């Protein structure tokens, strides 16, 4: 798309917004995702919610510098986007543009982890990366291991989102092994600043780190379990979950009470004492 067309589109969008037309008044083109990723030079101002400015820095590549304002946080995000050959035939809606900024993932990473987070949660992402390194070192002391992939950590903004995407209320880990090789190591978890319940760990200090450590501990465990050429792959849950809890140092008062009750009832077995 040439710059004149882009400028014209931008001007029309700005004009429509400026005229105060409702969301439904914007004709639809493509999804916002394709619009944002394909059309490169644009300047969109959406009332006070989002200010986005983009410029082409080299042929078929661009650097987009966005300033996203979400009261009370202000963050600046720099991303590199891919080429820009697209014909815009109509306009995205205000709602769609808003959604791309609230549902897309940004990342920060280091040698061992990639943290995925939503715009506006940069502080959570940095906290998560810091905690992840603590978790790795803590796990390494009790369970030495080597992972040949970076562990991906997805930070969900709220309970509804993690329930929708992962089907669990707090955190979950995913391990993919193919041909004896670890191909996927992923953790989905609520953001560190989440102030709701953490499955009971909110009673203790550092609930995010505790839950992250529990999920992280599952990764080398299931990697070693599933990469075996032969042998059992269905350990009892007391072993897999108990080891994760031991490694992460998580001892809730309710645990002892449950075990005490099981002991008094004699209702535990070596196969599944927690069942």
């Amino acid at each position, binding site marked *: 798309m040439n710059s004149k067309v882009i400028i014209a589109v931008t001007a029309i969008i700005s004009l429509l917004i400026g005229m105060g037309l409702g969301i439904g008044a914007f004709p639809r083109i493509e999804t916002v995702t394709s619009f944002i990723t394909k059309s490169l030079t644009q300047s969109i101002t959406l009332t006070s919610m989002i200010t986005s400015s983009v410029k082409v820095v080299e042929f078929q590549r661009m650097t987009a510098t966005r300033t996203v304002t979400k009261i009370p946080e202000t963050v600046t995000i720099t991303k590199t986007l891919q080429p820009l050959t697209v014909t815009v035939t109509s306009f995205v809606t205000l709602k769609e543009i808003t959604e791309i900024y609230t549902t897309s993932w940004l990342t920060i990473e280091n040698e061992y982890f990639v943290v995925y987070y939503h715009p506006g949660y940069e502080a959570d992402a940095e906290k998560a990366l810091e905690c992840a390194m603590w978790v790795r070192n803590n796990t390494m002391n*009790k*369970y*030495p291991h080597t992972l040949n992939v970076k562990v991906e950590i997805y930070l969900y903004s709220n309970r509804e989102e993690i329930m929708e995407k992962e089907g669990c209320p707090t955190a979950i880990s995913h391990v993919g092994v193919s041909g004896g090789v670890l191909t996927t190591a992923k953790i989905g978890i609520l953001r560190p600043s989440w102030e709701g319940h953490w499955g009971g760990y909110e009673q203790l200090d550092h609930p995010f780190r505790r839950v992250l450590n529990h999920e992280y501990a599952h990764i080398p*465990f299931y990697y*070693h*379990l599933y990469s*075996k*050429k*032969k*042998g*059992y792959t*269905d*350990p*009892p849950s007391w*072993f897999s979950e*108990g*080891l994760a809890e*031991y490694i992460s140092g998580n001892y809730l008062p309710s645990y002892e009470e449950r*075990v*005490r009750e099981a*002991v*008094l009832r004699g209702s535990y*077995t*070596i*196969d599944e*004492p927690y069942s």
Partner: protein
Amino acid sequence: MYKEYGKEKIISLIKSDAPTFLDAIRKELGISPAEFEQGWKTYLANKFGS
């Protein structure tokens, strides 16, 4: 369990090529599942005084 057998034994239990978890206890820890369970019950009895 971890303190009793140490991390090397625990990791070998995970990586064991024994066909079942109970077989892995026999092979990697060198005790029968019954002995393992009795040790666990003794630990719990001492801890909870039952």
